[in-house]
């Protein structure tokens, strides 16, 4: 019996004018465009420099800043007030003020002050640009130190050389891509089932099904399996795309990824089906699944780390299946984690899959 129902689902999906196209277009978009857009590295920071010294050293520092790929030297103002006006008007993101006698202090006292003022409207951008700027100033200082090593009294300097584990070049894309795959699976395998049963309600075809002896379990399975296969197609499509375009392949075993995806897709499709069962029309169902997916994505650690959320928000993420799968994907992709390290996530995802699908079977009512 299930065979005929699944056959019917596939015919309907492939005859749909839009769905098959979206199933191909979304992964392309998500894999080729999003990683460049969803990037936390801040570049092209407009910097305004107030140079009160006009010395050789101050010029050198300015050149160094202008040469960095992070900063664009937007203007050189004569005083701090003028620079602040530029910040207000939005032309400038950060001000570097060089004190008078900068060079003199450096050579004589070996200490000089600069002031960094960053626009904090976008907190993240402000903090990052200020820290990039102080990095450059530090570098400038140690350059001066090493030049004078032979002449002046030696100062011990400690150089911290960062070594980043797992993502050696701190490439944001490598961090985002595995998580974007998860987001994609959530959107495709969550939305489509959510709209499925309710569309049968709207067209009235569910009535003809409800009057047959078709089992509730068989009916739900027949709705799940097509999305499960579509999910696998999307997953493989993404894996191939990122291998070809970014040269990124999972550090761990690909079968671990398949294994987890199999469970995860069932869980999100289950959520979709539950919503579909409770909705009376497409509008309700669309709106509800949209609400849940937005919340799940924003609270998953996809863009912002869960660990930096307040405790109450972290408590909410405990019931977010997306969070666990994103953790798993990043761990497999970047660290090459094997199943023994992922048992907690696996157990949790299995629970979600079971709960939502049992709920979907129970909430599907053939008789009111």
């Amino acid at each position, binding site marked *: *019996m299930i*065979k*005929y*129902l699944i*056959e*019917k689902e596939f*015919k*309907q999906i492939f*005859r*749909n004018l839009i769905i098959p196209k979206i199933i191909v277009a979304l992964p392309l978009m998500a894999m080729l465009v999003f990683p460049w857009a969803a990037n936390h590295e801040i570049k092209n920071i407009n910097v305004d420099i107030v140079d009160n010294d006009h010395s050789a050293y101050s010029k050198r520092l300015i050149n160094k800043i202008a040469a960095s790929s992070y900063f664009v030297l937007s203007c050189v103002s004569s005083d701090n007030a003028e620079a602040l006006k530029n910040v207000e008007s939005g032309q400038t993101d950060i001000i570097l003020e060089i004190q008078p006698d900068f060079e003199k202090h450096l050579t004589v006292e070996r200490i000089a002050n600069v002031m960094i003022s960053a626009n904090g409207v976008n907190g993240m951008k402000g903090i990052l640009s200020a820290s990039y700027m102080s990095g450059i100033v530090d570098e400038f200082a140690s350059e001066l130190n090493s030049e004078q090593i032979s002449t002046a009294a030696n100062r011990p300097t400690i150089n911290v050389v960062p070594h980043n584990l797992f993502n050696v070049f701190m490439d944001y894309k490598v961090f985002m891509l595995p998580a974007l795959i998860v987001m994609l699976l959530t959107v495709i395998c969550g939305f489509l089932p959510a709209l499925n049963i309710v569309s049968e309600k709207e*067209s*009235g*075809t*569910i*009535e*003809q*099904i*409800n*009057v*047959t*002896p*078709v*089992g509730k379990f068989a009916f739900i399975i027949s709705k799940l399996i097509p999305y499960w296969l579509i999910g696998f197609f999307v997953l493989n499509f993404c894996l191939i795309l990122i291998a070809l375009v970014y040269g990124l392949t999972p550090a761990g075993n690909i079968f671990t990824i398949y294994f987890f995806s199999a469970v995860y897709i069932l869980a999100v499709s289950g959520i979709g089906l539950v919503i579909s069962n409770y909705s009376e029309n497409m509008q309700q169902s669309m709106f509800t699944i949209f609400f849940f997916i937005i919340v799940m994505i924003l609270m998953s650690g996809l863009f912002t780390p869960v660990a930096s959320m307040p405790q109450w928000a972290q408590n909410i993420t405990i019931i977010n299946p997306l969070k666990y799968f994103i953790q798993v994907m990043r761990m497999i992709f970047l660290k090459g984690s094997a199943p023994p390290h992922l048992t907690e996530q696996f157990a949790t995802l299995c629970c979600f899959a079971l709960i939502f699908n049992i709920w979907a079977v129970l909430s599907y009512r*053939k*008789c*009111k």
Partner: protein
Amino acid sequence: MISKVIETRNLTKRFGDFTAVDNINLDVFKGEIFGFLGANGAGKTTAMRMLCGLSKPTSGQGFVAGFDIARQQEDVKKHIGYMSQKFSLYEDLKVWENIRLFAGIYRTKNHEIAAKTDSVLAKIGLSSERNALVKKIPLGWKQKLAFSVAVFHNPAIVFLDEPTGGVDPVTRRRFWELIYEAAADGITVFVTTHYMDEAEYCNRVSIMVDGKIEAIDTPQHLRRQFNANNMDEVFRKLARKAERNDNG
């Protein structure tokens, strides 16, 4: 003694404080064509949905094909066919695909499906439309297809909810021929209609007014009882006292 296919005792359905179906008692016998008449809003569809196991009775009892409609809905469903008022086959499937789907759901053997599909399509004159998407064919053909799907698995009884609504007279006539053929095959037919000429085609009819069955007998007896020339007059006389319908 002819066996009863449908039997209800004080069957009632309430929605809040509105009583859609009010204590109906009904016996339908094997092989009958039973006309279930009533004005709009009289409660026909609600009663039919209860008999099909789509809706739970609020009180009273009902048996269809020997199964309790309140407790054994899934068993009831194995022995009935149903054609709803609103066309509800899959419009995005082809004609043969709809037949195959429902045949498969009723566990018809795979090799039987193909042969039987051919004979059914020949019977309703849709052989050439076999590969047409259902949304592309006219309403009259859709109705014939829906009927064929409803009786494909040889149910004990088939429920037809206004099967000829919006269909032209020639197709309507052809449709009734199909109903007679099904009845000749031993399938009991339970049909609602608003066309009183169709009521004359039934072996027995009941007329529902405001959720209650006001009359139940053969068309001939009803005409005599209400001193009327045809079923149309019988219907008018009974429906006049209705309080909740929209067309008096």
